[in-house]
């Protein structure tokens, strides 16, 4: 009778990151890449996937060695593990996709200090078995990819009139250049957070109304 409970727990840990505890829209973590490199859909997707990769592999290692690493040096050990995978991503992007690597620049190296990743190690991977840690990391990572892609796509559509470099509107469209500049990141994130909070408020009201 253990099996179904285990699977549902794993599924639960996986699903929570996608929407209910989305790292960007709900927890508002990792704002530096969220604001800085979401000026095009392709950049934000690349940044999201790089973070996903680092998160999954760091969680795997941290969870594997969770009983070996003494508590006193755990943060140091986590950071070394995270930094290792970030550097691997940095090399891999430079080798496989030099154009994207050039666009993302220093923000790849800055994944090391993304508090989403260290947060998941401290709050989850260091206390849970490998399977659950993997589910949690994948869910949270995909939630991060999804959020970054939302921002990137919106900003590219409004700011350049394109999506993945395909023009969407006719010649007459005047791009809102501000959307791909830094203020556009804040505007887009603000409006998305507003929208999501409004959605959740409405749902809560409906639930309380149906309960009465």
């Amino acid at each position: 009778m253990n099996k179904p409970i285990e699977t549902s727990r794993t599924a639960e840990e996986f699903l929570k990151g996608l929407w209910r505890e989305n790292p960007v829209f709900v927890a508002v973590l990792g704002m530096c890449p969220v604001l800085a490199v979401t000026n095009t859909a392709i950049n934000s997707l690349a940044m999201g996937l790089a973070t996903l990769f680092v998160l999954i592999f760091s969680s795997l290692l941290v969870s594997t060695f969770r009983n070996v690493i003494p508590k006193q040096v755990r943060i140091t050990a986590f950071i070394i593990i995270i930094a290792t995978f970030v550097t691997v991503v940095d090399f891999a992007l430079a080798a496989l996709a030099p154009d994207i690597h050039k666009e993302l620049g220093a923000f790849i190296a800055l994944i090391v200090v993304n508090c989403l990743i260290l947060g998941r190690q401290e709050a989850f991977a260091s206390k849970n078995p490998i399977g659950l840690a993997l589910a949690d990391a994948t869910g949270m990572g995909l939630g991060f990819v999804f959020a970054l892609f939302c921002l990137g796509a919106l900003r590219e559509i409004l700011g350049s009139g394109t999506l993945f470099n395909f023009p969407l509107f006719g010649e007459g469209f005047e791009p809102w250049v501000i959307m791909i500049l830094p203020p556009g990141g804040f505007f887009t994130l603000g409006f998305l957070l507003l929208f999501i909070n409004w959605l959740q408020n409405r749902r809560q009201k409906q639930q309380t109304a149906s309960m009465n």
Partner: protein
Amino acid sequence: MNEQVPQPTPLDLEPEPSSFKLIFTLGLVGLLSGLILAGAYLYTLPIIEANKAAALQRAVYEVLPGCAEFQTLELRDGRLLPPPETEGSGEQSDPAPRIFAGFTADGQLIGFAIQAQQAGFQDQIVGIFGYRPEQQLIVGFEVLESKETPGLGDKIMKDPAFIANFSALAVEPLPKLVKKGEKAQPHQVEAITGATISSRAVVRLLENGLDQWREPIRNYLSTQNAKDE
């Protein structure tokens, strides 16, 4: 005795691990990380180098229309010479500045691709341009590295109208920046509206390159001609 004794955290209950264990763990983590990094570095280094070389090579053909092959030349003691053969793959301690001489398919020298840099709006702009000494013309320009503002300054690499400035730009007198729509002379460059600083940086970059290389190129050409005769 109703005073609450502060609850000890689990960390305090456990015996403090020995310093040796702490150092050993961190050493082990560091060692593992080093192994992974060394592996990734060794594996990706040749690909990254090849990418860079390919980007540079593509840029040379781009800025020198009609170029079929090119030769690398180094500046040493004020003279342009082919790089020494012994160099191999070992890294030079102080690589000499180099330019690229472009030739047509039948071996005619058509010009030089010159790399230069200049501080832009945010960071150094590194660019490469094609220079034809016979006609005193710049025949092409491409940005290799820049961090100019997306949407404004980065038009120096994306705006076709701005790039068209460099398809036949006279260098005598030196290139000069003018407002958009005011180009009347062959040595004038039309600026990008809203990105004057980036546009000016490009013009300065051209000047830097010309300053450094015009004299060596003149010497090189005169010695080549002397050899031919």
